[in-house]
C-alpha cells in the first residue's frame, strides 16, 4: 500500500546540505504494523513527516519515490497534499497532553475533522464520533464527548487522539512514539488497540519508536535506522532474534533484560570510554579527594509512617478544601551502601518520596532518618543542616537540571564552595577537572557550557556535581528515562561503578522495571501512595508476592526469545 523507494531528505543550510535521510526504502501493507526503530537523531520522525508532507522547512525530499496506493505522494500540490492528510494518511503524536486543542470539546474536534473530509451533517458526524469512541473503549461516549481534553486522563486522551486520527477512515496511520508518555499498563492497552485496529479495519500503521520492547510486542515488520541510513529491515521476529547487522545486534544488547541481572550494561559503541578502569591520574586524584573526607560514605536512609497531603482547590469559602493524599503512612528503609529501586506508575508517589527525603516537601506525619540520626522534615531542616549536603539528587532531565548560563567548571565548583568543602578557588577548579575525568569526560569540558554536550554527557556532569558534595546518599529520579538505550547503558554503568567504589547508598526511582532489576539490591513497589511490596530485588523479579507486582511485570514489553 505505502511504498517508499530511495527516499532522501535534505536540510539545506548556510554551511552546506545536511542529509537527514539517505536512500531509505520501506513498504507498509494494509493491516500491517511496521516498526521504525532507532536512537535519537536516526531520522525516524523525519520519515514520518516526509510521508505526510509536513517536513519542517527548510527540509525537502531530494529524491526517491513515495506512493500510497496509486497516488504519487511527491507529485501532489500543496492543497492536494493537505486534502490527502486525514482522509488517507493520519498521524498520532507522542504526547496526548499537548496534541489536543485545549479550548475545544472532543465533539467539536471530531466533528470538524469528519466534516473537513466528508459532506455530512453535524449530527451525523456526531453519531459516528460517538460510535467510534465506544469502539475505541471510552465508556459513556455520548456524554464524555461533550468534555474538554483536560477532563480525560493520559491514556484516555491518547484514545481520543487515536479516534481523531481514525474518524476519517484513513488507509495509513503514522504513530510517532504513541506510548512513550504513558505508563506500562496504559501503554499495553493502547498497543492492544492499535493491533486490533490494524486487524479489524485493515489500516496500515507505521509505528515510530525508540523502545525495542514495543517493537517486539506488536509489529509485524521492523526497519532499523541509524543516522538517517537503513541498517536492517525484515520480519520483526527474525530481525530481533537473529539480527544480521552489527548495529542491530549492539542495539539489542544495550536493552536491559527484564528476566536476568547482568553485571554491567553492554555499551554498543566501542568508541565510548571504558569507565570500568579510569586510567587518568586526575581520576585517581578525584577519587582520593572524594574518599578523603572525614565522614563515612553510605549511610542508611529511611522513613517511617510518612504521610504527605497536598491541599486541593478551594471550592467554597466555608468548607476546607479536600486534601489529596500523595503518600499514605509509607515506611521505607534503604540499607547503607545498597541500591533501593523504587517503581510504580505515574502518580504513585515515587517523586514525592524523593522530595520528602531531600526536604522539598513537608510531610504531615511521620519520621525520617539518616544513619542513626533523625532527619528533620522540610520546614525544620535548616539551610545549614548537614543532611542537605549528605543527600544529593540526580534529576531526570539533564537539559533543565544544569544552568545553561554557567560554565561546567562553575557548575561543578558550586557544591565545593557552597558546602565549604574547599576554600581555595584554584583547588576547586582542579577538583572539578579531576572529577570530569572520573565520569569519563575530558578535562577541557571545564570551560564549556552545558548546551555543548549531549544528553548523556550532561547527565554525567549532573552525577559529577552530586558527587562533589561528598554525599552519603544519592537519590536518582528517573536518571536515564530521557536518554537513548546506548547512552542509558553508559550512564547506568557509571552509576554502578561509582556506587561500588564509594559504597554510596542510592535510592533509584524508575518506571522501567528492566533497568531497576539491573541496578538495585532491593525493590519497593508503590501504588497510589502506599507500598505494595518491598524486598530483595531478585526475589521480587523471580517471584513477586503482590498481584499488582505480577501485573506490572507481565505488562512490561519483553524481548522475543528471552
Amino acid at each position, binding site marked *: 500500500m505505502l511504498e517508499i523507494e530511495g527516499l532522501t531528505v535534505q536540510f539545506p543550510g548556510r554551511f552546506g546540505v545536511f542529509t537527514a535521510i539517505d536512500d531509505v526504502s520501506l513498504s507498509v501493507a494494509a493491516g500491517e504494523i511496521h516498526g521504525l526503530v532507532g536512537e535519537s537523531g536516526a531520522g525516524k520522525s523525519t520519515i514520518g513527516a516526509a510521508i505526510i508532507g509536513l517536513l519542517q522547512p527548510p527540509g525537502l525530499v531530494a529524491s526517491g519515490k513515495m506512493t500510497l496506493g496509486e497516488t504519487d505522494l511527491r507529485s501532489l500540490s500543496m492543497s492536494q497534499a493537505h486534502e490527502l492528510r486525514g*482522509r488517507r494518511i493520519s498521524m498520532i503524536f507522542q504526547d496526548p497532553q499537548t*496534541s*489536543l486543542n485545549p479550548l475545544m470539546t472532543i465533539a467539536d474536534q471530531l466533528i470538524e475533522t469528519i466534516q473537513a473530509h466528508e459532506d455530512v451533517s453535524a449530527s451525523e458526524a456526531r453519531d459516528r464520533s460517538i460510535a467510534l469512541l465506544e469502539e475505541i473503549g471510552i465508556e459513556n461516549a455520548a456524554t464524555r464527548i461533550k468534555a474538554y481534553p483536560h477532563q480525560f486522563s493520559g491514556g484516555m486522551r491518547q484514545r481520543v487522539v487515536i479516534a481523531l486520527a481514525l474518524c476519517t477512515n484513513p488507509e495509513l496511520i503514522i504513530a510517532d512514539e504513541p506510548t512513550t508518555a504513558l505508563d506500562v499498563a496504559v501503554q499495553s492497552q493502547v498497543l492492544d488497540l492499535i493491533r486490533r485496529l490494524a486487524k479489524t479495519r485493515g489500516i496500515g500503521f507505521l509505528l515510530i519508536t525508540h523502545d525495542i520492547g514495543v517493537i517486539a510486542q506488536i509489529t509485524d515488520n521492523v526497519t532499523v535506522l541509524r543516522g538517517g541510513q537503513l541498517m536492517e529491515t525484515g520480519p520483526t521476529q527474525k530481525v530481533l532474534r537473529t539480527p544480521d547487522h552489527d548495529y542491530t545486534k549492539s542495539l539489542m544488547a544495550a536493552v536491559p533484560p527484564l528476566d536476568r541481572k547482568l553485571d554491567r550494561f553492554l555499551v554498543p559503541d566501542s568508541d565510548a570510554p571504558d569507565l570500568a578502569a579510569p586510567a587518568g591520574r586526575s581520576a585517581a586524584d578525584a577519587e582520593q579527594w572524594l574518599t578523603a573526607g572525614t565522614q563515612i560514605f553510605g549511610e542508611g536512609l529511611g522513613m517511617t509512617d510518612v504521610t504527605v497531603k497536598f491541599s486541593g482547590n478551594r471550592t467554597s469559602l466555608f468548607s476546607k478544601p479536600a486534601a489529596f493524599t500523595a503518600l499514605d503512612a509509607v515506611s521505607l528503609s534503604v540499607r547503607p551502601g545498597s541500591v533501593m529501586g523504587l517503581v510504580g506508575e505515574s502518580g504513585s508517589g515515587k517523586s514525592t518520596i524523593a522530595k520528602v527525603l531531600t526536604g522539598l516537601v513537608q510531610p504531615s506525619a511521620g519520621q525520617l532518618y539518616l544513619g542513626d540520626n533523625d532527619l528533620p522534615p522540610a520546614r525544620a531542616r535548616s539551610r545549614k543542616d548537614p543532611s542537605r549536603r549528605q543527600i544529593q539528587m540526580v534529576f531526570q532531565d539533564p537539559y533543565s537540571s544544569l544552568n545553561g548560563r554557567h560554565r561546567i567548571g562553575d557548575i561543578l565548583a558550586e557544591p565545593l564552595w557552597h558546602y565549604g568543602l574547599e576554600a581555595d578557588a584554584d583547588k576547586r577548579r582542579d577538583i572539578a577537572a579531576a572529577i570530569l575525568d572520573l565520569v569519563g569526560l575530558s578535562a577541557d569540558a571545564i570551560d564549556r557550557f552545558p548546551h555543548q554536550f549531549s544528553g548523556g554527557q550532561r547527565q554525567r556532569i549532573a552525577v559529577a556535581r552530586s558527587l562533589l558534595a561528598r554525599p552519603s546518599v544519592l537519590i536518582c529520579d528517573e536518571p536515564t528515562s530521557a536518554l537513548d538505550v546506548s547512552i542509558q547503558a553508559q550512564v547506568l554503568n557509571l552509576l554502578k561503578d561509582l556506587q561500588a567504589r564509594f559504597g554510596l547508598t542510592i535510592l533509584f526511582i524508575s518506571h522501567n522495571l528492566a533497568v531497576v532489576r539491573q541496578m538495585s539490591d532491593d525493590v519497593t513497589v508503590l501504588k497510589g501512595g502506599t507500598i505494595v511490596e518491598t524486598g530483595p530485588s531478585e526475589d521480587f523479579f523471580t517471584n513477586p508476592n503482590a498481584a499488582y507486582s505480577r501485573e506490572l511485570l507481565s505488562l512490561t514489553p519483553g524481548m522475543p526469545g528471552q
Partner: protein
Amino acid sequence: MAFFILKRLIQSIFVMIAVAFLAFSLFRFVGDPVSQMTGVETSAEDSARLREELGLNDAFIVQFGRFTRNMLQGDFGYSYRTRQPVADMIASRIPATLELGTVALLISLLVGIPTGIFTALRPRGFVTQSILLTTLVGVSIPTFVIGIMLIFLFGVQLGWLPTFGRGGTVQIGGWTSSLFTFDGWRALILPALTLGVYQLTLTMRLVRAEMMEVLRSDFIRFATARGIPYRSLYFRHALANTMVPVITIIGLQFGGVIAFSIVTESVFQWPGMGLLFLESIRFVDIPVMGVYLVVIAFFFVLVNMIVDLLYVAIDPRLRVREDG
C-alpha cells in the same frame, strides 16, 4: 463560579483600600492644607478654627476612616484651587478621557490584531519585515513627539484637522460626548492616533509572538496532519489559544491608556482627567490628585476583573479548576 467572582471582589476591595490609604497619605503628609487654603491675612484663630472644622486635629486613623466613608458616600471633598466639589470636576472630565482611551484602544486592536495574525502567518515575507521595521520606529519615538509631528503635518501643514480641544460635543445626560458630531470626530482622530500607536505596535508584536508560538504547538501539527482546512486551523484553533495571554495585556493596556493619557492630553489640550491632573499638580491641589488616584485605581481593578472573567469564558481549564 460564584466563589471565583467573590474571591476576585474581595481581592479588589483590598487593592482599593490600599490605594485609598496612599491617596489619603497625600493629604496628610504633602503640605499643610490649611496654609494652602488661607492667605497671609488670615488670623491664627481662624486657621485654628478651620483646622478644627476640617477635622485635622483628629487621630490619623479617625481621619482615614472619615475619608473612606466620605468616598463611599460619593463625597470626594472640595478642590483647594477652584473650591468646587472634586466629584463634579472629575465627572465632567471622565467622558473625554474615556472616549479618547476607548477609541485609541479600538484603533490598536482593530489594526494590531489583524496585522499580528498576518505577520505570524507570513513570518519571513517582505511585507511582514516592512511592517515590523516601521512599527519598531513607532515604538522608539516618544508619544509626545508623534503627537507634535501629527499636529505639524495634519494640523499646520495640511490644515485638515484641528490641533486642540474636543470640537463639537453633544450633551447626553451628564455625559459630554464628541462621538456624535463630525466635528468631534475630527478633533478626536489625532489624539487617539497618538495614544493608540504605541499600544498598536505592542498588540501586534504580542499577537505575532503568541500566534507563532501556538502554530508550533503539537495540537496545531496534529490538526494539520488531520487535514483540517487552513482557515479553521488559523482562525479557530490557533487564534483562540493566542488570545488567552493577549487579553491580559490588552486589559492592562486599557488601564494604562486611561491612566497615562496625560501626555497626549496635554499635547492636544484635550480636556480630560489627565489634563486636570496636570493642572492640579501645578497648583498643589491635593484633593483632586488623591481622588484621581483612587478613580484610576478603580478603573484598573474593574478592567482586570473583566479580564479575569473573560479568561474563564475562553479557557475551559480554568472553569473546571475554579468549580472544583
